[in-house]
């Protein structure tokens, strides 16, 4: 029988997800023995036309990474959806918007203003902005693909079958997911595959160092302490998001004595990562004084950026509520 067809595509991606696939190293070669890669812009010279020529649903699975930032991304993923039996949101950006999703804290105009006018190096007296451009004397039009008002996770644009978490997914997680998909007995639609069903603490080497009652007097910033790498970072005051984050990465950041920032996202029973993370941090804070709570909040510096680092576009509000003019 013929090998299943696989497509890989990136939207508003940094390429880290692609790199993580390349990091399968020799496994890439194993993979190529069992599947046909029909589309992978970064590594293979197949073009979108090739995809368009394919019959509907003829691609077994499309792995799409990156958030939906430009109208163009929207078009490509819709094409892939129609050609694929399964669409897999690969990596944090595709699954929940990822770090570029923090752009949803600002309006499109504010972003353009900063990038093309305000930054100190820009010289732009004519006030030029990239937009669909008409060269009057040449009489031609150059379409600059639209920068959407908000960055969207993949599932806000097309139907998504499975999610592979991580920024980026580790080779192990990617490989697990591929095994699951090849195995044939697939989990329910919408499942997160390849990673753990428990929070990071479950696999964290420092979890056993927690005291009996997990309460902390104050939050600490990484700028102010050098934590003992052998003790639970949360207990030492660093707002580690391990407890509220899906496991499966092998506690990479904690191994480097840095707190978890949540790139594997929330667990199945949680519907808003940031709100849940906030509730957990507030719960372990050991004070009954409002002023003290506010003081400790300062230590977190940036609630939204910290607690929605990878998931703002997928959060219940999707970003900042824009004041109506």
């Amino acid at each position, binding site marked *: 029988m013929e090998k299943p067809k696989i497509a890989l595509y990136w939207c508003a991606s940094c390429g880290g997800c692609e790199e993580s696939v390349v990091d399968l190293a020799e496994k890439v070669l194993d993979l190529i023995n069992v599947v046909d890669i029909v589309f992978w812009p970064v590594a293979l010279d197949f073009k*979108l036309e090739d995809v368009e020529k394919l019959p509907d649903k003829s691609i077994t699975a499309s792995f799409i990474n990156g958030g939906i930032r430009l109208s163009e991304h929207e078009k490509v993923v819709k094409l892939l959806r129609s050609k694929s039996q399964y669409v897999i949101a690969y990596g944090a950006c595709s699954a929940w918007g990822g770090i570029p999703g923090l752009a949803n804290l600002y309006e499109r105009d504010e972003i353009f203003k900063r990038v093309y006018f305000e930054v100190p190096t820009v010289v732009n007296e004519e006030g030029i902005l990239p937009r669909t451009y008409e060269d009057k004397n040449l009489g*031609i039009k150059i379409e600059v693909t639209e920068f959407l008002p908000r960055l969207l996770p993949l599932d806000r644009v097309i139907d998504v079958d499975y999610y592979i978490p991580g920024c980026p997914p580790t080779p192990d997680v990617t490989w697990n997911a591929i095994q699951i998909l090849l195995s044939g007995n697939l989990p329910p639609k919408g499942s997160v595959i390849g990673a753990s069903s428990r929070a990071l603490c479950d696999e964290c080497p420092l979890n056993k160092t927690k005291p009996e009652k997990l309460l902390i007097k104050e939050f600490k910033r990484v700028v102010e302490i050098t934590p003992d790498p052998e003790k639970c970072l949360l207990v030492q005051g660093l707002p580690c998001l391990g407890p509220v984050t899906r496991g499966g990465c092998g506690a*990479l950041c904690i191994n480097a004595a840095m707190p978890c*920032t949540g790139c594997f996202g929330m667990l199945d029973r949680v519907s808003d990562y940031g709100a849940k993370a906030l509730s957990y941090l507030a719960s372990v804070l050991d004070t009954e004084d409002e002023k003290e709570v506010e003081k400790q909040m300062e230590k977190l510096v940036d609630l939204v950026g910290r607690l929605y680092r990878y998931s703002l576009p997928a959060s219940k509000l999707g970003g900042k509520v824009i004041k109506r003019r």
Partner: protein
Amino acid sequence: MVKEVIIDPITRLEGHGKIIIVLDDEGNCQKAYFHIPELRGFEKFAEGRAAEDMPQITPRICGVCPMAHHMASTKALDDLYKVDPPRTAKKIRELVYNIFMLEDHALHFYILAGPDFIVGPTAPKAERNIIGVIGKVGLNVGKKVIGMRKKLRDLNTKIAGKVIHPVFGVPGGISKPINEDIAKELRSVANESVEFALFTLKVFKDIVLSNKEYVNLITSDSYTHKTYYMGLVDDKNRVNFYDGKIRVIDPYGREFAKFDVHEYQNYIAEHVEPWTYVKFPFLKKIGWKGFIDGENSGIYSVAPLARLNVADGMATPHAQEAYEEMFNMLGGKPVHHTLANHWARIIEMIYAAERIKELAEDPEIMDKNVRIIPTSTPSVGIGVVEAPRGTLIHHYETDNLGRIIKANLLVATQHNAARIALSVDKAAKSFVKGGKVDEGILNMVEMAFRAYDPCHACATHTVSNSIPLAFYIYNSKGNLLRVLVNE
């Protein structure tokens, strides 16, 4: 009318870098536009974030060179908090950084650009990829490349936490010292690295330099632009990726400027074009003169060739040897041949490998003191490194809590954007004549592209290493004549 002819093909050709060529009445190229569709706005949404989070946020600009952003950002934090990391911390950072440079350059040479040379420009597209390369050099070599990269990347995973989007950089040092196990592994990998880099040079010589065609291609005028060059140099004006002063030379190889990164705003400015999200940096003192090369144009270039051009030499023996060899063969400094970037890149691989070895054998990297806790109030911080694709600058302003108020990012590929546009223009001029379009233009431009190893994730914050291209050719009436796609 115009609208009709343009919309339809574009929807068919999403995901492509768009090149629009407009002909004059004689049917010669009058003007060429190059448009890379991407923008994410990091400069804006950095605002409000905690400064100490930037080394983890900014790597998401580019997952191909996350370490470069992580390091530039971490150095900006040292500066922000006015704290000088312990010597050991600096050495470990530089070590990790060179490991990164080595594996990233290897990725580019063997997997992204290699196909052009190893498989051959005329080979069918389906073979022009890593699989094709393996077919040509043999599975063992393929495995060797993949294996080497894996070892290097695993090592960085152990030291930096994550190899894609590292976490170990903190203001005043790094999060954790190196333990004995890692050090042991380090020393063995270091030796292998040097051997691997020299092997890569041999591959390049055997396959590329031994082939007259390729050499002509490299030196051919189509790939040549006389521009300024920019790069970091150490106190002896030798190439350095991690630290140093920014040196700029003019098209004749004379030092035009040498400055500390804190003065970058006096030397570098950015130009905005309405038809692309990419901003075009230029030398402020000379100004933006449009897409032309030469001494009177502010356009300059970065990345391996530029770095070697601005430097007086390499800091390690084998690299220095290869450095001299290249310039001798290509007729002295500066070299303006874009394709020479591949060669320069391999020379940098050798330097990186040798530097790894030096640091791996330095007993000081085992020291446990790798962190100084900052005490001063933050306000402004600027950091610079040489990313594989060129000079990378991060510039933050914060409130006294260390919350970012303003951020400016000058990223590697961006510096080359103008020069890439030049290549496109030049290609258009030489391949489109009398309304006839030679399809060789596709190959030619694509190869020029690969030479820069343009990472548009950096330049505009998306990757399109494969540079799929679409050429729109209009007549002087503004009517679309034909659309060319590089298949």
